[in-house]
């Protein structure tokens, strides 16, 4: 029987964010914005949703007097992504 896809991940921008974060150790907000072509506002909202789900860790700090947001995928996020891809494969099997 097919399992439901995680609704937190089954959204275009959130899936893009998690796919990027799974490929790196950590990334700045600007990196995610550039790669996803999302607006700062939308990106910020989706990152917060991922943070609330415990999939992403967000650290805010200052770099050269400018605020800097660093995002990192959590172990729960890695597991959720792994499960999502496995479930996706079930749907795609001929």
């Amino acid at each position: 029987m097919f399992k439901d896809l995680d609704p937190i991940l089954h959204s275009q921008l959130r899936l893009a964010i998690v796919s990027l974060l799974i490929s790196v150790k950590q990334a700045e907000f600007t990196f995610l914005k550039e790669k996803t072509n999302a607006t700062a506002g939308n990106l910020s909202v989706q990152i917060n949703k991922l943070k609330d789900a415990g999939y992403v860790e967000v650290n805010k700090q200052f770099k050269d007097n400018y605020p800097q947001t660093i995002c990192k995928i959590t172990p729960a996020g890695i597991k959720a992504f792994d499960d999502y891809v496995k479930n996706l494969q079930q749907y795609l099997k001929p």
Partner: protein
Amino acid sequence: MSEQESLALITSMIQKAKGSFHDRGTSAILWGSAIGIAGITGFLQAYFKFSIGFDIWLIVLVAIIPQIAITIRERKERSALSHEKQLRNAIWTVYGISLLALMIYSALVPGVTENTFQQKGVEILQKNITTGEIKLYQQFVLSQLSLYLILFGIPTLTTGIGTAFKPMIIGGIVCYILFVISCFTPFMWDSLMAGIAGIINWLIPGIILRNRYQKSKIADV
């Protein structure tokens, strides 16, 4: 979003992330040049019996200054840290610590050895078999550049294998080959081999990385 679209999005983002990291090769060019110049100049001085008036290996210490500037600039410009870069940073940091430890060993051990002998009331003398002149033997680490050749090979070969970058794999292997050769040659030739190691181990891979980086920059425009 359909399942196919999800999969396509995941693939595209992973590819985008992977394509964002290009080593500029600046550090490799810097260290390859410094060690190449020091090694070859050291050899030429010994072979043609002339002196440039200072220890040429000091340029390796001077190279630390631009390296600090390069590291600070890279950190400032970096908007994401890849797993590969994190691993490479760890390898090269451990290499830096080991290099420093070996430099300290080379600087301290001869003096400590001499003191130990003095405390035991022992003096080691050397005799010139042609003139018969006998003088106090100055302690030094024998063939120390051979030890450096082993050390040079470790980070390069590890990075080369870990990142499947052939020029560094070749550079690392060359270091070990030069080490074996240096075990059988007079010390003067060790300096030449260290210079060659610097060029093959770092300078050439660094230039290749720089070219790749510039090509990727042109492709991104």
